[in-house]
């Protein structure tokens, strides 16, 4: 049961940041994860009145406020056009509409949770996070950092053209994923992202020699299989209640191979199950 001594609706990010430096204080996002803890929170800091619940389209990028919900992401036309639907694909199976009306992108990314579909997906886009103190850094760098008392203010997705694929395997349709996988192919190259291993998402670079073939759609099924195996071999997997390490390893090969097949067509189609 969640225990909170004091609740403050922050009137500025400065105020929120200062409060967040004190031990026992926490920023509250969608409290979906937090409500299950038996933690004693001194002051709960709510960012709900700071206008951070909007998705702003700019010339070169999308600026997504940290309080934007997963449902907003799911329904956003332009973001999904840019990402060929992988943003929608990555969130649409999360519990239910009511849940996604509460879960925030800030909460999902700040937690850097192992099971996070959102983290996997955004690592396959040209994503940056804007930290109040730490400034703007690439999401991949943020994902590697430990949790601290900074505030994740915005998520920035650059309008970098590319092909994107998202796949996940779940034991039941709206459960936590057993494994997530996303792929990106753009002008700079290609990468695979695999998460829920059960550890959090990690990126694996796809060797540049594959870039042209994937762009042309000319990899043979054998080549796709080999490539998927090579990538999967670099991804450590583990066991938890939902699945064993060996199955996850097996799934990594399957999802990556299927993802690569979609990627080399033109991206966007998820074909896990």
């Amino acid at each position, binding site marked *: 049961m969640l225990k909170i001594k004091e609740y403050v609706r922050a009137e500025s990010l400065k105020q929120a940041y200062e409060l967040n430096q004190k031990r026992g204080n926490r920023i509250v996002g969608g409290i979906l994860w937090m409500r299950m803890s038996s933690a004693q929170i001194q002051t709960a800091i709510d960012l709900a009145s700071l206008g951070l619940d909007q998705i702003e389209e700019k010339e070169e990028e999308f600026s997504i406020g940290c309080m934007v919900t997963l449902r907003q992401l799911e329904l956003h036309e332009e973001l999904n056009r840019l990402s060929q639907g992988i943003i929608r694909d990555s969130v649409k199976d999360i519990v*239910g509409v*009511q849940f996604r009306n509460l879960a925030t992108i800030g909460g999902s990314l700040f937690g850097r949770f192992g099971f996070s579909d959102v983290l996997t997906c955004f690592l396959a886009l040209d994503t940056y996070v804007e930290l109040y103190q730490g400034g703007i850094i690439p999401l991949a760098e943020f994902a590697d950092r430990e949790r601290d008392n900074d505030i994740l203010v915005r998520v920035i997705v650059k309008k970098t053209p590319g092909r994107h694929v998202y796949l996940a395997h779940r034991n039941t349709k*709206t459960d936590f994923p057993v494994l997530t996988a996303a792929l990106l192919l753009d002008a700079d190259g290609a990468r695979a992202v695999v998460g829920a291993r059960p550890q959090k998402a990690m990126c694996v670079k796809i060797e540049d020699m594959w870039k042209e073939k994937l762009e042309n759609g000319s990899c043979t099924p054998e080549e796709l299989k080999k490539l998927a195996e090579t990538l999967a071999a670099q991804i450590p997997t583990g066991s938890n209640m939902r699945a064993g390490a060996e199955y996850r390893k097996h799934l990594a090969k399957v999802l990556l191979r299927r993802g690569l097949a979609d990627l080399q067509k033109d991206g966007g189609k998820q074909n896990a199950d």
Partner: protein
Amino acid sequence: MQISIQLNGRKITEDVRPDLLLIDWVREHGCYSVKRGCETSNCGLCTVFLDEKPVLSCSVLAARADGHRVDTLEGLQEEASEFGAFIADQGAEQCGFCNPGMIMNAIALFRENVDPTDDEIREYLAGNLCRCSGYEGQLRGIRAFIEYKKKGGAVCRQ
């Protein structure tokens, strides 16, 4: 701390504990239709509207709802009986415990999409668990209701 919430059209201002959940707050104010079915935000029984969006009231602080509008089935009785009649005609309201949350979410669906496909209905209601009915009766009732609305069945909206 003091909060002010508009509950089913009535403004309520009072002192609450900072960690009071919206589900407990609405039940304290007589909205017994809002049920608790789990502690992990998985079942959907506690669905209410927060500023007209369906949310899980077990996962919202009453303090977060300060200054906002909350609607429960108690404030949607006409829509509930109009739509609910179609569920009743299937016998699909078995124990009834999941019904208020399901009906709230179904009303949200109808407001967003007047002619959903079966897949769209299932996906929208995916977060509403039911253990009694096997879901098919709910789908039949929803389909019949949508057909009725397409043929001009009227409903009073607040």
